[in-house]
Structures are given as structure tokens and as C-alpha cells.
């Protein structure tokens, strides 16, 4: 599935993450992550976002994420909501 429109889920409140999905003309999954804990957990968080997207059959999108210290289950839920809002 390709992402065809811009959708958002989440917030910039503490322990949350703001996820924005956009169409990617390149046809690949591209993740841009800003995080207060980028240095410590950037790789780990990107991997969670990527696997959540792939699990929902996403093959192409631009995923911009601004993380404010969200835990894994929150990250997954926010990415899933952003995908749901495509429909």
C-alpha cells in the first residue's frame, strides 16, 4: 500500500510522539526522526516505526516523527492511527 495523502496522529506532549505520513514520490519508505532521546534510542525507535509500517503493508511513504519520549506501545499506536486516517 502506498501513502497517498498527508495524515497525522499523536501530539508533542510529554511521553508522546507526533507522526506525520506523507506520499513519497521516490516510492520508498523514508523515516525522519527527531527525538529528545535520539542519541540513546534513535535506531531502536526508527526500527519500531519501520516494522509497524511494514506490518500494515506500507511500501512507500515519507514518515516524519517528532518524539517526546514515547514508549514503544505508544509509538506503535500513533503510527497505526496515522495509517488508519489514510482510509
Amino acid at each position, binding site marked *: 500500500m502506498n501513502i497517498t495523502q498527508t495524515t497525522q496522529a499523536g501530539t*508533542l*506532549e*510529554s*511521553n508522546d510522539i507526533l507522526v506525520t505520513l506523507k506520499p513519497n514520490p521516490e516510492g520508498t519508505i523514508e523515516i525522519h526522526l527527531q527525538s529528545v*532521546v535520539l542519541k540513546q*534510542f534513535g535506531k531502536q525507535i526508527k526500527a519500531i516505526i519501520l516494522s509497524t509500517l511494514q506490518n*500494515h503493508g506500507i511500501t512507500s511513504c515519507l514518515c516524519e516523527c517528532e518524539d517526546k*519520549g514515547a514508549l514503544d506501545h505508544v509509538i506503535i499506536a500513533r503510527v497505526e492511527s496515522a495509517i*488508519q486516517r489514510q482510509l
Partner: protein
Amino acid sequence: MNPHPNHTFLQAKEDLVKHKQALFTQYEKPVLSLQANMVGEHKLSGWSAWVIITFEKLIQSSMKVVYKERIFNELGFISLLVIDDDPSHLKQACIQLEETKTSGRCIDLDVYAKGRNLSRYDLGFDERKCLVCDEMARVCIRTQKHTQKEVIHAYQQCLITSFQSKVDIVHFALLSECMLTPKFGLVTPRSSGIHQDMNIHTFLKSIDAILPYFNEVEFISLDQNTHEIFSQLRLLGQRMENAMFEATQGVNTHKGAIFLFLMVLMAQRMSPSFTSSLIELAQPLLEDFKQMDPHHPQSEGERQFHQYQSQGVRGWVLKGGEPLLSNTLSFYASQPDSHDHQVNTLLNIMSQCEDSTIIKKRGWEGLLDFQAHAQAAMNHPESWFDFEQYCLDHHFSAGGSADIFALVLYLHYSKERNLL
């Protein structure tokens, strides 16, 4: 896609941000939100209410608040204040408060303007530190370095240390009673129970109105006989009732609590192990019973005295609150504080207390049935919903038990804080 178990929680967070944005658009001024950063699923508690209301007061005394709103939902207790100030200046002032006040670590003061919260980092401040160790808080949260128990304990200890006076602890105790949910027919932040004329805001206004008067107990001279001390307390109590009725527009929220707390605070001044001084101080109440005319009861209390020989709350203090007070104090002290343990403590009180509000509704038989139901619900959270329904069906709201619950928390923490 299955909805995530905490879907409503995440939805509430998005809704909160939309609401903050709407306030920002309407007032064109920064929106300050106050939230307790308590971990765990039970966000509504006296702990969070105490720290939020304490900081609300600090902020209101030093900043220009143009709009104020208190929200109670899945996220807990949130106070929103629209402040007439420059956002960066306001955020700096808030960081100052978070860093310098003892309980500052227990609260998040977020300043929202132009689509986002201002971050500490943008203003050149460090990220917040963990409550338990000195690591960056977000790192500890992500790695779950500390157990939930450990963090809650550190949180509570931090707040206990910040109690500066007995009146602070009275405040905390009254708020704890107020916030406790479920409360079986009584008013909670999420329900008005059986009541149509009051809600959580009525109670919070009432607490604000009566609280300052508790300081006056300190000024009553001990160089007079107990009858004179008692008459001064009665006068103080009447002024407090007037302040309460003014704040609640005529609704009785804390008459019982005013009476109990004044008596106990005074008895503690007379002697730190206050039971005998409470009994001594209560002696003039015997006069009340002597003066009652059995054929023309002047109040519900008098009616119950003649019908059931129940002396109600007067009789209770005449016995120094015993044995119920000692029983419940040791019950509460037997475990670390938690939401469920607080509910069980209230049920413990309900199962023993001759609560006049219950007798009024269904007589002595009704009281015994209520006590048995409370006893059965104790330590059985799965039955709390049914007990709540039972109370709603019978129109029960055990206000007397709730007052004693607040008193038990007060006595426990004034001892722990060594402010006797």
C-alpha cells in the same frame, strides 16, 4: 487493526492539544497546563491534586491569569491557565518553579503557544532529571530502569517532604478524599454519585474556602478550661460553615469534616497522643444530648439519638474516635499507599462506622446491610462496580465515612511527617 488498549488515553491527549490550541487562538496568549507526572494507571489522586492546586496558587499569586479551567479525564487532573505573558518569559518562570520548589519535580508545567509546547532545551535548560536517580528522566522511562513501585514511592516521599504545616496535610487529606474514585454514591471527579446539587468543583471550592481557617486553631489559647476552648472552636466552626455555604451556594460539603478536623487539630495541640484530650474536649457535647427534647428533635442527629440511641459523630468524638480510628489507622499503615489500598481503607471505615447519612435513609437495618456490603467489597475490586450500584439504588452516600477517611490520612501523614 485492533484498537490499542489505551486508545481512549491517547485520544484524550490529542483532544487536550486541540483544546489548548483553541484557547490559544481565542485569547492569543500562552496556555499553561499543570499536570502531575505520576506514573501508573490511577492518575486521579490526592497526590496529584495537591501538587497541582499548590502550584495553581503559586502561579495565580504571581502571574496574570485570564482564564482558568480544571479537567478530569483519562489523563488525570489537568489545570489549564491562560496567562497574559510572553511565552518564553512564562516558560522560564515555570522552569524556575520546577527547579526551586521541593515538589517541583512532581509536576509538569507546560507552556503552549503557536502550535507547540515550548521546550526546556530551546531555552537553554537541561532536560528534567529522574525522581529516583540523577539520570535524564526520559532515559529512565524508556529503559524502565526503576520499578513502578520504586517511582511511586519516590514521588510520594518528595511530596510528603514538601508538606510544610499541619494545614498542608489537612489540605492533602481533604483532596485525597475528594479525588478517590470509585466512592460508592459519593461525589468523585468522574461522577456526582447520588447527588444532583454538587460535583467535584463544588468540593474543591469548598476546600479552598475552609482551608485558611484551620490555621486559626493555633491561635486558640491553651490557658483556659476545655469548655472555653470548645466554645471558641464552635465559633470558628460556625465561621467556616458560613464560608463553606458561601462558596458552595448553600450546599453542605464539609460540615462533618470541619467538625472532626477542628476537634482533632485542637486535641493534638493539647496533647500529641490526642485521644484523651479529644474526649476531654468533647465533654461539652454531652450538654447537647441533655438539652434535646425527645418529642421535638431539632435535627436529624437528634432524631436518630432518640430513635436508635445513636449519638452520631458527637458520640464518636466523645469516645475519642475509638475503636474505629485505631483499627483504620493500622489498616492503612499496613501497606504502602496505592489507589486500591485507599479504596479498601474507605470500605474498612464504611463497614464499621455508624454513618448517620445511611441511618437517615434506611434506618438501623439499612445501616447493618450497608456495612455488610462494604465489608464484602473490601479487598475485592471486582465487586466495586456492584457496590457502587447498590449505593446508587439505595440512595446511599456515606459522607460520615468519607470524613473519617480524610481524618485517617491526615493522622497517618502528620505522624510520618512528624508535624504533630
